């Protein structure tokens, strides 16, 4: 195998693995933005909050980061419900969610980021776990476990959510609230309550994505904003509100970035997601799996 081909193979594999992790980051936005129409741009900051919780508990007590992520989905779920309750009273009821709701989440993003900065400083922080160093070698492929574990866990997360949305009453109600609020009310479900649950789920995924992020690479409080463009690009590209679409789009973005970084240098990769976003908006605003 030539050197070029092996370089390409490596780029593809790491792109797919990182892409899977992007899916875990994007799924919260996919629910909040795609299904509920709430442009929660503070989501990346919440993900970093999850990372720093994993960092503190890992360095203090030596807990496993994935376990911390799973445990903290519960407080994050309630945090999300509280956030939505406030958002609904302050903006949705007044009909001012477009400008002021956006500004609210932007302020929240900023407060979280600066708050983390004041507590932890601007140094890069990392976690320790047995699987962060080694790699799994299968033939010519070498799969670093620190990428493989978030990848597999993300697939489980997305698959679980997809089953929840298509097979349970609450899940179907969440899908329905995006389409027709009134019809949902006639079916005897309270849209505000359904949206509160859905937003809680969306926020809960941030705890997991945060834990995956700090397994994958060292984190620093202001990193979140680099992910905003990427996450929204994935959601739009995948078709807002479609979980399989989100997953496929996340893999596409991951692979495109990884190939760009390998062949043109890593300093160019932040522009890739934006390029894809613009192409998606111009060519097919409904996304790959969009219904509209």
């Amino acid at each position, binding site marked *: 195998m030539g050197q070029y081909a092996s370089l390409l193979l490596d780029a593809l594999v790491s792109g797919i693995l990182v892409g899977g992790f992007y899916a875990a980051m994007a799924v919260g936005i996919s629910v909040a933005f795609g299904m509920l129409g709430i442009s929660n741009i503070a989501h990346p900051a919440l993900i970093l909050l999850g990372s720093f919780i994993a960092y503190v508990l890992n360095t203090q007590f030596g807990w496993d980061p994935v376990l911390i992520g799973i445990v903290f989905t519960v407080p994050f779920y309630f945090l999300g419900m509280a956030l939505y309750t406030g958002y609904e009273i302050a903006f949705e009821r007044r009909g001012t969610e477009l400008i002021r709701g956006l500004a609210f989440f*932007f*302020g929240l993003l*900023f407060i979280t980021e600066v708050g983390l900065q004041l507590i932890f400083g601007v140094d890069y922080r990392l976690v320790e776990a047995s699987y962060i160093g080694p790699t799994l070698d299968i033939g010519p492929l070498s799969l670093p476990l620190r990428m493989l574990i978030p990848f597999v866990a993300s697939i489980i997360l997305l698959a679980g959510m997809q089953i929840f949305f298509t097979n349970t009453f609450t899940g179907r109600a969440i899908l329905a609230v995006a389409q027709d609020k009134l019809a949902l009310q006639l079916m005897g479900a309270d849209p505000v309550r359904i949206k509160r649950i859905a937003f809680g789920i969306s926020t809960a995924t941030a705890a997991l994505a945060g834990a995956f992020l700090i397994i994958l690479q060292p984190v620093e409080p202001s990193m979140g904003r680099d992910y905003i463009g990427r996450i929204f690009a994935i959601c739009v590209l995948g078709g807002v509100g479609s979980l399989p679409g989100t997953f496929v789009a996340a893999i596409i973005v991951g692979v495109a970035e990884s190939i760009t970084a390998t062949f043109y240098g890593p300093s160019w990769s932040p522009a890739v997601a*934006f390029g894809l976003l613009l192409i998606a908006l111009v060519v097919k605003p409904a996304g790959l799996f969009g219904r509209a």
Partner: protein
Amino acid sequence: MSNLRFVVLAILVGALLTGTSLLVTNEYYIFAAYVVLQYVVLATAWNILGGYVGYVNFGTTAFLAIGLYSAAAVNKWLDLPIPVLILIAGVLCGGIGLGMGYLTIRLRGIYFTIATLALSVVVQTFIVNWDYVGGSRGLYIMRPNEAPVFGSYLNYLFFLMIVLAVLSVAIARVIERSTFGFGLAAIRDDEAAAAAAGVPTLRLKLIAATISGALMGMAGAPLPFYLTYVEPTSSFSLAYTVNSVAMPLVGGTTSWLGPVIGAVLLGSMQQAMTVLISSSINLLVVGVLLVLFVVAAPNGILGLIQTFRRRGAPQPETNPVAALLVPEKRSAP
């Protein structure tokens, strides 16, 4: 306020600021006032699209940095006077505002917001990879110590920023009171109804996006000469974006006066806090103020003043949350 009174007042304020700057001996005050005036321009520019039309731009940083770097690059290539650099930056950023608007404003407003947010990341990527302006190492800008008429060069830069600030506020006021401005307000309130009534919605939105982008770029053009050293990390500081969003929303978005009040208030407060406490605390305070105001006082300081003035006469409750809590207030005399 009549037009004549506004013009007289604007010229008076401009002349007063210029005169004071020539008399002040401590240069720190001019440095601080320059930053505040720059925020007057940025907040006013943001409000033309954000407040009048309702399209949220989170890319102030990108527009400012494009203005900044275009001026730095052109200055390195040709030795042009700053007013020309300001014009170049304005044309460039106006074009970018138009392009971003054309690609995304036709869709839902939120896509424009996301695209502007991502624009900062992309422009920063390009600047980091652009060796001519120093890449991530940064670039030193040589400026003369003296300027004709104004004595020190800093006074000259300050004067340019006064002109830009007065100009942008005047533009905002003209827009607000023109047919164009009424069209924008109609789009903000109900786009479908506006289109049905014959308002050319797309064209008006694109013009607003162009003007807003151009003003932000123009504010950035004198900045390299003020800083004398530019590098990507601080040029792309999110502080510009959060301030230009917070200032109009704190001041009040429906009038030209709102962003000015917000910029002067928040800008001076941050300058004072940077000296007295620390610069990261003051960004936290701006974030908290932004959230507090959008939740508790949706119409900003101007809205609060109006409510306060109207308190004597019975008014239907305009705040729906309050109306829900005290329904009897609607019918009470």
